[in-house]
């Protein structure tokens, strides 16, 4: 039910949102490389950040996983003494998903977004329980040090077909998402 161009478009929307919102400074370099879906690593920690965008014909779950590498924590906590990593990471993830939500609104006027929620990484194999029609994972590296993994999981309930512009514009500013 999800056309090929809709799949590519969702990926593109995510990549644009990630490159703009998962970095703390515009000059930071964010690289995104594809991964085999469902291969999230790490272990008994509550480090899966889950966010959902719902529309009538589909729901899109964005799952971000912070690696356990200390450089990732260091990157996100830089200049934020006394703040918990989970809190900062949830804010960053929320901005990224909010950016996707705004871009999707151009194609689907009725959309809503959930608040972020953390899950144990051992829940990851059970994404299949949601009977997704489309799964896509990627590894994200920021400045070659901070490392994340992201998975897009789309469950469709009606045909989904849309296309973003080939040169989808990359946002330069992130608006504050309230949650």
């Amino acid at each position, binding site marked *: 039910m999800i056309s090929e161009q809709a799949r590519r478009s969702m990926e593109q929307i995510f990549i644009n949102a990630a490159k703009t919102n998962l970095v703390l400074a515009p000059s930071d370099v964010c690289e995104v490389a594809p991964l085999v879906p469902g291969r999230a690593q790490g272990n008994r920690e509550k480090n899966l950040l*889950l*966010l*959902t*965008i*719902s*529309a*009538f014909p589909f*729901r899109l*779950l964005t799952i971000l996983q912070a690696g356990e590498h200390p450089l990732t924590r260091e990157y996100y906590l830089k200049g934020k003494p006394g703040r918990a990593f989970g809190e900062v990471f949830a804010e960053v993830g929320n901005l990224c998903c909010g950016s996707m939500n705004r871009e999707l609104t151009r194609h689907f006027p*009725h*959309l*809503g*977004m*959930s*608040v972020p*929620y953390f*899950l*144990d990484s*051992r*829940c*990851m194999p*059970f*994404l299949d*329980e*949601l009977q997704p029609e489309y799964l896509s994972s990627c590894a994200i590296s920021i400045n070659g040090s901070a490392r994340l993994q992201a998975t897009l999981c789309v469950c469709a309930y009606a045909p989904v077909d849309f296309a973003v512009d080939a040169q989808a514009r990359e946002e330069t500013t992130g608006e504050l998402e309230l949650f």
Partner: protein
Amino acid sequence: MANWLNDVALGDLPLTGIACACLILWHVWTVVRLRSRFKSQLGAAQDVNVRLSDELEQSEAAYDDVAWALAQSEAEIAELAALVDRLKEGIARLEQLAAYERAEAPTIRADRQPELLRHAGQMADDVAGLKGVAMVFERWHDEMSSLMVQNRDMHAKNDELASIVNQVAMLALNAAIEAARAGAAGRGFTVVATEVRALARRCEALARDYSVSLHKNDMTTTATFQDIQAGGKMMMAAISGLELMATQLRAKLD
């Protein structure tokens, strides 16, 4: 020792009898001591089993709670579907009015103006009333939050259960070693220890399965929770848009 043997060799039979009696007494005392150790280990294993049963009962009760809450969620999803139907009806009526306004508004006779105004007013009121759905979303949000808290509680209980099962396995292993050291006297205890170990293995498998079920439950519950939350925001935005349209329509007819 050598002197004692010499004494025996000299035929000191009464002394040999006393020595034999001492040996028998020492064996009897050893058996009594082992029995007492086994009893205390068995008692400890029984205590652990009782705790295990309690934990299992509590976990089952918590699982029932989650099943009940999920059934509630299903009923509420049906309620949401009914609300969506009402919303669709409202949208259809609004679209009809808008189409009528586009096609015939320039030629509306003055005598039909009050009727249309009344319809537009009713529409605006209906749509404003639909905003009350926000209260339903709040209610669902609270219930789903309590469901997530219960899930966390069940994880904690299951971890405790797994820890108890580990203790039982260790106790059963110790009992088996002690029983083996006791030889023939410990044969009965070997059987008991083996049974307890088998039970511990079954409990371990059960706790593992339970943990898998809980993680599966976490994923489906969270995804459903977020879908309801996001769907609620989507509907509120749609209702606000409709309310604005209805108000604008009424203002035009006024």
